[in-house]
């Protein structure tokens, strides 16, 4: 073992320049690659959102034709889900898991390298379809046939890039599971793991279970289009609704893939700044696991309007409502953690608090959507758009930003500018609400989603939402500026950057050494 560790300490084999990043097998390097890539994709997907919001600023078509508008909505979703949020969580896992469990690196470093380097190629291919003569995918990110079968030449490229992204996610998930189950420091039993590690372990199983289902669905689309099968075309005896069942059997666990690591981050940050242990650790773990299990039996609530039998509608309504119980437990536990704590409000804490409030609002609208008879009204309107943006932007994205502010001093040894961080928080939070809150109103008033133009009674709230969207986009430039300023500073951060921070990563120096733990720490 000691010979092994001596070998790890040698760092002179490392190539420099670009080759360092292409050949790296180090969890921190790969974590950084994931995070920077995710930031880039966040801006690419964000620009597409701004095209959408610019067109929707007022009724009538001003900038783009409807076909291109549909490409923008489709690509915006694919890029944000697969390019921004998922890689950001994998990046955080790469940086944090080995440090949190007292390991030197991830269990499968070369696989780790591969799972990252698939991404730039997959997204290059996906984005290149926008320059095709027939344009990019325009059938929505859900790729429902028969519409998606009508698409132009982009279709096989989109499917292949989704296959690559799925493969990358599965490799990442295997690595996470192998690392967590095999490389924990002596004494760290499963029920002593930091909660972020727990949420990622469960997320990884969700990834392994759901990604192959997506692969199956899109492969059937491919053969329907090019090899004369009729899985989903009614004219050939196929069933268009079958695709929706398969897609959402992937799609609903995917939703929790996008939020469970965020729960883990918030459950780490709230206790740190409340200077009090996380309330109900065990129930947090059980709640996460039950959300994950329930996610496999609720999929058809995305398709209440396809005309399912009554019994099916009732089943999926009940199971969906049931998710409110473990989710409620989580929110109550966070509030109980704050209760009688000694709170301070640095930027990560502010983002975590906004997460709790705004994610809960998204949860409330989710509960409303679960009620099948009411969903017949909400379905495919801007109410749904408001709902899932509330859980994904002030939900997942806020958690990611909070995590970056929280661990940045550990990663770089440099502390960000707290004043600018707070300005970034307030701008982001105000604009996110200006953008997405009015969408509840226009949705309830009857505005369908995925339309490039709308009836004039929806104008006022759409204008407000568009102003908010541009404000939100600009606020994120401030985030980049803050990162830039931080990285230019000298190393001054303390090993334990936050008074109430708990966990093995804070026992390491800041910045953390290249091979996190040379010798496994003792956990009691």
């Amino acid at each position: 073992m000691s010979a092994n560790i001596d070998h790890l300490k040698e760092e002179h084999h490392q190539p420099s320049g670009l080759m360092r990043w292409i050949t790296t097998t180090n969890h921190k390097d790969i974590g950084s690659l994931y995070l920077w890539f995710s930031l880039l994709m966040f801006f690419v997907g964000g620009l597409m959102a701004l095209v959408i919001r610019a067109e929707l600023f007022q009724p009538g078509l001003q900038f783009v034709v409807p076909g291109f508008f549909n490409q923008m909505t489709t690509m915006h979703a694919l890029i944000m889900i697969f390019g921004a949020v998922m890689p950001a969580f994998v990046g955080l896992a790469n940086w944090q898991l080995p440090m949190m469990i007292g390991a030197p690196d991830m269990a499968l470093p070369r696989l780790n390298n591969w799972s990252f380097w698939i991404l730039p190629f997959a997204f290059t291919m996906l984005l290149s379809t926008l320059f095709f003569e027939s344009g990019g995918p325009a059938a929505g990110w859900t790729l429902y046939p028969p519409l998606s079968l009508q698409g132009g030449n982009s279709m096989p490229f989109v499917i292949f890039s989704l296959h690559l992204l799925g493969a990358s996610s599965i490799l990442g998930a295997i690595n996470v599971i192998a690392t967590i189950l095999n490389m924990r420091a002596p004494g760290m039993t499963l029920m002593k793991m930091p909660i972020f590690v727990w949420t990622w372990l469960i997320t990884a199983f969700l990834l392994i279970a759901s990604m192959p289902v997506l692969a199956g669905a899109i492969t059937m689309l491919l053969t329907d289009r090019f090899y004369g099968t009729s899985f989903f075309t009614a004219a050939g005896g196929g069933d268009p609704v079958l695709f929706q069942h398969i897609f959402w059997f992937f799609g609903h666990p995917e939703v929790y893939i996008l939020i469970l690591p965020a729960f883990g981050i918030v459950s780490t940050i709230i206790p740190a700044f409340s200077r009090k242990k996380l309330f109900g650790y065990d129930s947090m773990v059980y709640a996460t696991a039950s959300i994950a299990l329930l996610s496999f039996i609720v999929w058809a609530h995305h398709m209440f309007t396809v005309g399912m039998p009554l019994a099916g509608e009732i089943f999926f309504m009940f199971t969906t409502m049931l998710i409110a119980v473990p989710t409620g437990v989580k929110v109550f536990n966070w509030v109980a953690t704050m209760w009688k704590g000694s709170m301070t409000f640095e930027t990560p804490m502010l983002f975590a608090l906004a997460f709790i409030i705004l994610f809960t609002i998204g949860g409330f609208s989710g509960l409303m959507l679960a009620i099948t008879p009411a969903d017949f009204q909400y379905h495919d309107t801007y109410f749904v758009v408001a709902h899932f943006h509330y859980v994904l932007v002030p939900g997942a994205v806020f958690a990611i930003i909070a995590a970056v502010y929280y661990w940045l001093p550990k990663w770089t040894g440099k502390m960000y500018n707290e004043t600018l961080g707070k300005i970034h928080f307030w701008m982001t939070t105000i604009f996110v609400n200006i953008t997405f809150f009015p969408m509840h109103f226009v949705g309830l008033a009857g505005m369908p989603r995925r339309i490039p133009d709308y009836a004039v009674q929806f104008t006022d709230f759409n204008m407000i939402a568009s102003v908010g969207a541009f404000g939100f986009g600009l606020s994120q430039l401030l985030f980049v500026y803050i990162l830039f300023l931080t990285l230019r500073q000298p190393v001054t951060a303390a090993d334990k950057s936050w008074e109430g921070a708990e966990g093995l990563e804070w026992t390491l120096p800041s910045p953390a050494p290249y091979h996190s733990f040379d010798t496994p720490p003792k956990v009691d």
Partner: protein
Amino acid sequence: MNRLSILIVSMLVPLTTLADWEVNMPRGVSPTANAAYDLHMLIFYITVVIGIVVFGVMFYSIYHHRKSKGAKPASFHESTTVEVIWTVIPFVILVGMAIPATKTLIMMEDTRNSEITVKVTGYQWMWKYDYVEDDVSFFSKLADSSNEARQLGSKIDVNKVDNYLLNVDNEMVLPTNTKVRILLTASDVIHAWWVPEITGKKDAIPGYINELWVDIKEPGVYRGQCTELCGKDHGFMPIVVRAVPKEEYTKWVSLNQKNRVADKSK
């Protein structure tokens, strides 16, 4: 004018104009739409109460349990009693929601004993209406006034177009106080038929026949749109239903029978 009055006026202005801004689901004119509205409001109020309680506790804690006010952290971090209570209470609330929701759902899905049947077929990008018993059949697409105004660079002020994007060439005419069964299918891709004040939406799927029912209680014109992405002109295939008393409906049918295109409907 002092500063305070400016502040008050500026706060009141949005409140008064908000009256014109639709912020909620419209009340329906049929039993199913009304039931959906009632359920929507019920669940909404329940979530508001839960929100006030949870956020209230949270903000109390944020205000009082802060380090700058000298708060010392307590050391408790679990309590089985409390955790059981806040698992059971939400469950009970959910059961309370599920009972009316299930009743409403069963009512909505009961299409028996309808008096007339209309088959609605979705096309890219128009609707076709077939009155099964009354032998009337016609297509309905976006009216020309909207269609011209909606083109990129049309230079037409869409605010001056009557019912921009919500007007059609041939309106669907339905009798009031009649249980109408609507059969939904599509010829090309999936569409969804939705007129919020009359009924919730249902998908029109190639190879499928879905059904829903409406019973319009008040004469009037009700507007809706396709609500399933169906290609480039998805946003431009509205639905207009004109609900008229039964006698007027019978007259309309006799004028438009024998598969004639119902462009004389006005």
